[in-house]
């Protein structure tokens, strides 16, 4: 096994398989945005403090700015672009709109992905669980109330 400056990887992103060559020092976030033009995932702090770049890797929420793209060979990735079904927003995305959980919108994709992970692991979260689940995501506009309401609402919806 050699040391590589570019690394061939095979990844499944939003159920589509990609075979790409990535630079050894590029993050998953950089490859998603710059190479694959999936720009829904946002870059803000670049060091795992803000959560704007949250995606699901093999079902686990991670900061894509703290993952090397080279590490993703064989991985299944879900980004914000993969939530819609046949052109319709997912119930969680719709709840964000209905509850006024979006203002400038920059944190929203990461916030939605963190909430998506929370609802997959805890389908009916309490308010405390929602706040804990989203504590790795910063929002500078909303004051978080609308976001918490949206996730609460989406959690109830999954019941029916």
């Amino acid at each position, binding site marked *: 096994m050699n040391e590589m400056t570019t690394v061939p990887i095979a990844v499944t992103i939003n159920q589509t398989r990609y075979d790409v060559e990535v630079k050894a020092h590029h993050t998953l976030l950089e490859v998603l945005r710059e190479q694959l033009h999936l720009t829904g995932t946002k870059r803000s702090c670049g*060091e795992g403090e803000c959560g704007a770049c949250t995606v699901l890797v093999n079902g686990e929420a991670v900061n894509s*700015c703290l993952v090397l793209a080279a*590490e993703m060979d064989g991985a299944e990735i879900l980004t914000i672009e993969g939530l819609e079904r046949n052109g319709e927003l997912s119930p969680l995305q719709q709840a964000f709109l209905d509850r006024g959980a979006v203002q400038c919108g920059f944190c929203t994709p990461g916030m939605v992905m963190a909430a998506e992970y929370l609802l997959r692991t805890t389908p009916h979260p309490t308010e405390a669980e929602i706040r804990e689940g989203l*504590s790795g995501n910063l929002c500078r506009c909303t004051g978080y109330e609308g976001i918490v309401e949206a996730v609460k609402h989406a959690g109830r919806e999954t019941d029916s």
Partner: protein
Amino acid sequence: MQSFKYARPESLPELLELLEKFRDRARLISGGTDLLVKLQHGNLAVEVVIDIKRVAELSDRVVTTNGWVSIGPRAVIGRVVRHPGIESAYPALVEAGRIVGSVQIRNRATVAGNICTASPAADTVPPLCAYDARIRLVSTEGSREVPLRSFFVGPGKTVIAPNEVLAEIRVPAPHGAMGSSFDRITRRRGVDLATINIAGVLHDNGTAVFAFGAVAPTVVVAEETSGDLCDPTVSADRVDEVLKTLLATARPISDVRSSKEYREAMLLVAARRVQRTALERLTQARGGRE
């Protein structure tokens, strides 16, 4: 980010060979949540990043064996704190692990990485020291075991040689009833580093072990055998007196997160809380044994 090469060994011999070749020009990656921040800032001289996630000999699991709990070097913090064997016996480690970074960080960061980064503020280190964890290191020259308490040399510095890799974290099973707890002081609740952190372990035989983080270049471990911290009938004044002698080993400094004076004051506050909760747990464990 600064540029570097990437290697993905498939076995331990392959990994050790790479380490022999690159020595301190190589960095290992498993979770990468600390390493990538440093690489983004460009303040590491690194030629190659070696991904250990395909090395089957380096486990990602927690295994309970006779007398020990073994935490694999690739075990992520989020999983370790949910392991039934850890949850039932090591509440201080669970309390510490649950507040490391954020959900996203805990899904990726390993306990081994938290140790090897050797931050004086690492949250999982005081509990593991208080439980007297051992670290198994391997290299082409063989294997050795080091107590975690003597693993750290300074901020960011450990006794790991450039050709060694952390292969296992071994935590001894409690002998007799044990009560333990962890607390930390931070400026905000989520995604913050500890201003100070404390783990305390109280044993049935009267031994109390406390470990303090972020109050010296490396974790400080203090042991006490009067039995007073493990006795629910002892007065609060006497407990304070004993805690203060233990805390005298801490050497806090002023930095961006806190002043020295605030750290000193909060050490006693957090130590009281830790002792109280650990004693409740010890009492419960003693009762459960009858």
